[in-house]
């Protein structure tokens, strides 16, 4: 087992740091239903961590625990070496945890630019009075944040749709705009809930490239849920496997692939 402070080196030679987030014995119940049962795992600095499992395994619930949407009945969430008390989702966002959603959750009435700018809201601090006057502080803050946002727009290659209302965009682009909004917050930890759902092969390739580039260029730690096994095995450094709210496997893609529990529960018969 790895030490908390020490990192490791991946197969492709990237250096992974110490523990960024640690889940300790998390149990989440909805009335009598146990969605997550006594699960522990960690996410390390700079790593791409996947959570997989069959439908209803509790993956999305786990992501919702990390992003503060649900507070678990038992267990502890540690972030950057400190125990995180129960928090509202907007407080978690201010800690530097951003996420995307399984079904796109963009602000349909706003343009792409405004949507991505909302990702900067945790960093924008001018008072109501300054904003009413606009000239000076508010305008300066707006411009500074616009510069950061434009870098992300360039990075994700969505310059041409900058001023288009989000409601008019096709599905694949919406997913990309949502990623842009999450990135705009410059998160320490980026959570992606099925980033590839409903995409064709080409769009999946694009999205995979963006995820790798984000990790590579900004050093962002990424935790993702995905159903496409090929994508998961290619992208991620380590994988957590869940089934019926329990953890049945944890390790590198190769380890997970050869784990008999995982094969039984999830992949069924090993084919190839």
């Amino acid at each position, binding site marked *: 087992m790895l030490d908390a402070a020490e990192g490791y080196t991946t197969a492709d030679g990237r250096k992974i740091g110490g523990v960024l987030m640690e889940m300790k014995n998390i149990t989440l119940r909805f009335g009598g239903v146990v969605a997550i049962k006594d699960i522990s795992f960690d996410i390390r600095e700079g790593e791409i961590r996947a959570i997989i499992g069959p439908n209803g395994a509790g993956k999305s619930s786990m992501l919702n625990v990390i992003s503060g949407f649900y507070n678990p009945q038992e267990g502890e969430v540690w972030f950057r070496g400190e125990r995180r008390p129960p928090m509202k989702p907007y407080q978690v966002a201010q800690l530097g945890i951003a996420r995307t959603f399984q079904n796109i959750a*963009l*602000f349909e*009435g706003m343009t792409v630019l405004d949507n991505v700018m909302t990702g900067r809201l945790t960093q924008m601090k001018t008072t109501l009075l300054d904003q009413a006057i606009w000239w000076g502080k508010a305008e300066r803050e707006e*411009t500074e944040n616009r510069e950061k946002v434009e870098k992300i727009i360039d990075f994700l290659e969505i310059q041409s749709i900058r001023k288009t209302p989000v409601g008019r965009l096709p599905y694949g682009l919406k997913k990309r705009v949502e990623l842009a909004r999450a990135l705009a*917050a410059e998160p320490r930890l980026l959570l992606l809930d099925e980033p590839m759902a409903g995409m064709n092969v080409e769009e999946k390739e694009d999205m995979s490239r963006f995820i790798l580039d984000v990790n590579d260029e900004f050093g962002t730690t990424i935790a993702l849920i995905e159903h496409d096994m090929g994508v998961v095995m290619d992208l991620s450094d380590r994988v957590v496997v869940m089934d019926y709210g329990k953890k049945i496997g944890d390790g590198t893609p190769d380890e997970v692939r050869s784990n008999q529990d995982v094969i039984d529960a999830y992949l069924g018969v090993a084919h190839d």
Partner: protein
Amino acid sequence: MLYREAGDFKTSYVDDSQTFPIKFDRWRYYAVLAVAFLVVPFVINDYWANAVLLPFLIYAIAAIGLNILTGYCGQVSLGTGGFMAVGAYACYKLMTAFPDVNITFHIIAAGFITAAVGVVFGLPSLRIKGFYLAVATLAAQFFLVWLFNRVSWFYNYSASGQINAPERQLFGVNITGPNTEAWATYLFCLVFVVASAWIARNLTRGALGRRWMAIRDMDIAAEIIGVNPLSAKLTAFAVSSFFVGISGALFFAVYLGAVEVGEAFGIQKSFLVLFMIIIGGLGSIFGSFAGAAFMVLLPVLLKNTLVGGLGWPTDLAAHIEFMIVGILIMTFLIAEPHGLAQLWRLAKEKLRLWPFPY
């Protein structure tokens, strides 16, 4: 030919995010301002001021206020009439308690008092949404009107239960009271309208406006990206009520002069302002003006054509007028559910490409 972006290059983000990015638009806006400030005051008469311009300007402020709450932040309110009454009565109490202070400060202070009251009645919005919130604000409407009717402290124990605006001056010119001149009251209201529109635009273009719109479009996603729903909704209620309070104060002090609360600030007023922003366009400052103009001008226009032009009896014309306004509102909403502001946007988009179809 003039309405073009081509050749008008933006080299900074400040330029790129200005309110009127097209040069022609900018000049048109300056021209409208110049006419409003430099030409209209010289040609205005009492009829135009009282029948058209004053109500248009004052309702425009109320519509901007409600549009911030409903159009930008997505919180439906039926309490506008009640909040206008708060502005009016606050202004009246201040005017009689501090007769030496300038009327301008009284009106602004009335706005702040209304903002505070608005925050209190906005608290339920944290728990309830949509139609249910509308019902909660309806309670505010009835409670506030009842309060100003029953508690005689608010109307200084006058026998009639009315409040009357005492005579006040600004730069030696009468602004309120019986002996005002049309141009003075018009200019006074115009300054408030321009300032309100400018502030509203500034608030909605920046971080605060994005917080409001995020809450409107999807409140759960807004919370996940770091918007505190409590502060976003309450600031929307405060800013909205501030403008509505100012419009109530102007409506009482400058326009009507004497007010009986149930008559002037009843539930009809709440609906009137709500219709204005729905017809004008939710989430648009221009829409607030367009809606106010539509609802104020249309009845006047119809009355003049029916009574003056066609020579119909006044009572018949009044009934027909109601029917025509109602039918026009429905036609408008079916043809363009996003209001006059959307029609305006489409017209501008077409104009940009004219004479080519795309």
